[in-house]
């Protein structure tokens, strides 16, 4: 019966209910979008790194987890020769990374090294570089930007010819000849990072330890460690703090919306509260129905926010194709619901207690 009372109350003022759902839903959308962006960026980065076929990656001492944010400092010839001569190292690949958008980078590669590292580049269409200003794009980028083999892409203020479309998850969305990128960035003979493929992945820890001993200042990272490193880096850049702030705002908005909505509802239903009291409804009963209604508003708002998060993802992908990777993180649905319900519970407190303390005689005479 409590459920019926609450549902009928929500149905009785559909516009109030819908507006409450919307206002509660917006911060839920913000949370889910931020978390989706964070997960999307981390997963995309890790997927591409793993897809390179490498077991270890070597970075200069000052490199960030996102290599695109670092300067190429490692001498190419010397380092490639050094790592090639190390035991268990089967293939090496030097890379220069250049950021073109906030989270989109071009990777300069030597095609032969890349081919050996990946165990054979998996093409969807087209083939390797034919000239210095050829670019390989992955299927994701091709679909998002509506590009195909033979098309031209403007990057770094130059036109590049798409020579091939490769499958996703092979190092980067955009690959250009290493020499060209080194010249453009004026880092001839320098590298951002060096990928190492071992004869057996089981040797990764051993090789990593040996290299760390030999090159203590350099970052020697296994692909397994890269995931947590990238996650830490994303969080260090403030995304987790930002998410925490948005969660705080969501609780405050949830609280304020529910408090205002329920307070208005209590005022409008003063007489009904008086009727319930005349029937013997206790204070806890009155608080319970107000609370139940607030929780329903919170749940409805969460559902609304989840639907809106799909819309937000569509907007981001449409407005910034092949840039921000955004995922729908189902794990965060119950978390967002919990955050909203916490706000709703707090918001229902004052209206609930106010309703419960109504004098029944005054409430019954309320017009």
């Amino acid at each position, binding site marked *: *019966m409590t459920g019926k009372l609450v549902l009928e109350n929500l149905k009785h003022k559909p516009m109030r209910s819908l507006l409450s759902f919307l206002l509660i839903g917006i911060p839920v959308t913000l949370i889910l979008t931020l978390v989706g962006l964070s997960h999307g960026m981390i997963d995309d980065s890790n997927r591409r790194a793993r897809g390179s076929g490498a077991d270890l990656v070597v970075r200069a001492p000052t490199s960030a987890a996102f290599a695109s944010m670092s300067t190429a400092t490692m001498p190419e010839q010397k380092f490639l020769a050094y790592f090639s001569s190390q035991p268990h190292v089967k293939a090496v690949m030097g890379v220069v990374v250049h950021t073109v958008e906030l989270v989109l980078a071009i990777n300069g590669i030597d095609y032969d090294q890349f081919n050996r590292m990946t165990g054979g580049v998996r093409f969807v269409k087209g083939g390797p570089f034919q000239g210095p200003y050829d670019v390989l794009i992955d299927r994701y980028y091709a679909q998002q930007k509506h590009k195909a083999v033979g098309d031209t892409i403007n990057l770094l203020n130059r036109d590049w010819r798409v020579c091939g479309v490769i499958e996703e998850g092979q190092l980067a969305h955009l690959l250009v000849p290493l020499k060209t990128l080194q010249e453009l960035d004026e880092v001839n003979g320098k590298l951002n990072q060096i990928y190492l493929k071992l004869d057996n992945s089981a040797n990764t820890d051993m090789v990593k330890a040996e290299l760390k001993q030999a090159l203590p200042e350099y970052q020697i990272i296994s692909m397994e460690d890269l995931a947590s490193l990238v996650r830490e880096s994303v969080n260090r850049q403030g995304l987790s703090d930002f998410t925490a702030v948005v969660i705080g705002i969501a609780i405050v908005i949830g609280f304020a919306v529910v408090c205002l909505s329920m307070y208005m509802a209590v005022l409008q239903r003063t007489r009904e509260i008086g009727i319930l009291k005349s*029937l*013997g409804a206790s204070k806890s009963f009155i608080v319970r129905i107000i609370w139940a209604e607030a929780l329903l508003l919170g749940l409805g708002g969460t559902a609304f926010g989840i639907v809106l998060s799909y819309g937000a993802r569509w907007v981001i992908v449409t407005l910034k194709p092949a840039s921000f990777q955004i995922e729908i993180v189902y794990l965060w649905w119950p978390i967002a619901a919990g955050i909203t319900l916490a706000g709703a519970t707090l918001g229902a407190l004052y209206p609930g207690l106010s309703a419960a303390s109504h004098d029944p*005689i005054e409430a*019954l005479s309320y017009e």
Partner: protein
Amino acid sequence: MSSARIIEIRSLHKIYRVGKVDVPALRGVDLAVKRGEFLSIVGPSGSGKSTLFHIIGGLTPPSSGQVRVADQDLAALTDAGRTNLRKRTVGFVFQKFNLLPNLTARDNIAVARYIAGTDSKPDPQFEEALRALSIANRLDHKPSALSGGEQQRVAIARAIVNHPAILLADEPTGNLDTENSKAVLEILRDLNERLGQTILMITHNPEAAQYGHRIVIMRDGRIMETT
């Protein structure tokens, strides 16, 4: 107190505080009501009729005096105690019907049972009363779709669904036309005669007052006369 007396009131005073002024609403009321009695209370506005009802019904505590309702000392009852009194011991019928507008007639009755914590299925005695109220085919309508007479009959059904010891009807015909007023009064009389329901009814209508076994006349917070 005699067990035949379901209500016994002695020297009842009730003072309301309005701003900084004390307003006496009841100034020493003595009243005894026997179980199964149908009592009409008449008097002009401000005579204290409704205040007397509110105290008997546990909506407000007395300021002083003794009030025993169904063997419970209302002066000693806490707020929670008065809430429990309203659940099972008294049932209210109001002039403005006071049905919950969002619920159907059936749910308005069900909510009273739910609050009282009784079974969800009404008992045969109530089903019989429901037939007498002639609202069986209107139970799935919301109050806005019911006439005044139908709403009041639903309100009566809601008031008696938990078999209260006392039914308090405050101007039950005040918002009804003559025909519906008569129908409601006949229903109250029927409930009293067939089920032995104790009824206290406030009315301004002298004809309606005649339905009671006794008529109590109130003025200025006192009982002036009992006939």
